[in-house]
């Protein structure tokens, strides 16, 4: 399973994302944020963005997800495919998607922020797991 949405917060959106390695976890968490905002099946992949972060994995993941929320408002960009490379507290993520076209795309939620509420990134016996709560 890449991610699952949870019904644990009264007013907002929560999900758990999984990955066999950190790169996969970042990709799946990115997709979960996208899927909470828009119907990703209807997105094209004509826009590309390269994002880079530095720091502890937990902070890099939070920064990365915050950037997706920022790009939603600042450039109306939404992504459906992510490729992440994570090494030595540095991450490079290539994101593919498209600009919002209100005639084609169905927006699901206007995410305000990636919170720290119950936020965690942890190792599991299968790899990695993150819990994320989004303020909508």
């Amino acid at each position: 399973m890449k991610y699952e949405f949870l019904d644990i917060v009264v007013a907002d959106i929560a999900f758990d994302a999984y990955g066999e390695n950190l790169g996969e976890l970042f990709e799946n968490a990115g997709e979960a944020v996208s899927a909470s905002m828009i119907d990703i099946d209807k997105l094209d992949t004509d826009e590309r963005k390269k994002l880079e972060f530095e720091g502890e994995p937990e902070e890099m993941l939070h920064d990365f997800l915050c950037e997706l929320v920022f790009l939603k408002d600042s450039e109306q960009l939404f992504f459906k495919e992510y490729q992440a490379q994570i090494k030595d507290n540095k991450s490079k993520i290539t994101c593919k998607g498209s600009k919002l076209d209100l005639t084609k795309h169905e927006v699901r939620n206007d995410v305000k922020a990636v919170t720290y509420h119950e936020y965690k990134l942890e190792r599991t016996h299968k790899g990695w797991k993150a819990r994320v709560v989004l303020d909508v």
Partner: protein
Amino acid sequence: MTSEEILKKIKQIDEFRWELPATFKDGMRVPGRIFATEKLLKQMDDRVFDQLSNVACLRGIQKYAMAMPDAHSGYGFPIGGVAGMDPKEGVISPGGIGFDINCGMRLITTPLKVKDVQPKIKELIDHLAETVPAGVGREGIVDLDKDEFKNIMKQGVKWCVENGYAYKDDLNSTESYGCIEGADPEKVSEKAIKRGIDQVGTLGSGNHYLEVQMVNPGAIYDEETARKFGITSTDQIVVMVHCGSRGFGHQVASDYLKVFDKAMEKYKITVRDRELACAPFESSEGQDYYKAMACAANMAFVNRQVILHQVRKAFNKIFEVPMEDLNLVYDVAHNIAKLETHKWEGKKRQLLMHRKGATRAFGPGHEEIPEQYREVGQPVIIGGSMETGSFLLAGTQGAMDETFGSTMHGSGRTMSRTQAKKEIKGEKLQQRMKKEGIYVHATSMSGLAEEAGFAYKDIDEVVNTLDLCGVTKKVVRLKPLGNLKG
């Protein structure tokens, strides 16, 4: 702790007041005070009490940490949470303000009656949907460069007066006269500017809305105060707006949460919840956040004012009402921190008030209330769910004495968004509301289902609780006719 165990620890003071004792959790500096009927108390999720007790642990908190009857759990503070901090000793916490800085309500009176508006309600709401951008990805109606956006941050509604989006009287009818002092755009990130510059004059999404309402038959509770607020008959049409500082405020909050997360070590502050990250108000980080928060708050006042301008134009176009005949009753912030002077234990003291999902409710005579309302108390606007109705109230001396001049903000959710969507489809809800005489224009059907009336607490019980406590006084109950949902 189970729900039963928590409830056992809460001490009942009287029918509407409960105390979460300072012994509930290690580190509580003051007790918690909950305003609720027994039913509303039991409807609050357990996290409310956990979060309230965490707030009571914050440095500099005075008297008690408060939860209003509409409280539900949030991030850091509960929604419906109020805390007054000593500005010299205490902290400022973005978690006590919320991501949507200066989310708030405004109420506008019209000279029209139900018989004038009801036959054209669909035309009106659909026209507003075209002229007030709602939902994701719709650009605002004010074209701004960066310098002009910074002027908005500094000046608030004064900018609107100078640029033709407001009448001078609108300034008097906005909390803090439409401008929180101390705003400094240099404390705002480039990212926040990029996120918000195109969003001035947009409603946003989620639970934000623009609603055309009528005064409920037989529901003018205080005729004299209602008249002062501009409401003279039960079939009068009014307009209510609920929105905030959009992506701009969300980014300011997100930026400073990270700043405070790192600053806490420097100031040797520990908190039980990362969303309660904070810094001493007088520290450089605390001051920077306050100055940036003021920028976002001023942008939110402007955002709601520009929407009012669009509402005036719409009524002028469809009903040929002169624009100046739509009067702003008041605009209140319900996600904000402010420096205020309060009197208790016989002394006047300055407090840094945090109100998150809570509204200022100053009583009669307070010098910060505009002259036209000073005799009756500050107007307080309480938005219910789209289906059930809303209230116009007045602040009281009771609020000054008991809650540092604060009250609830709405009805408060009881059901998660996910559960609400399981219970009803948006299309079905839209049909049901149509039968009840409410026309809804929604940008998203699933988003509409999330806002169903049953997902919220009983607005009458919430409002009555603080009315009977003597904190706010009921003036008028309002009923929706048409709703533009963000």
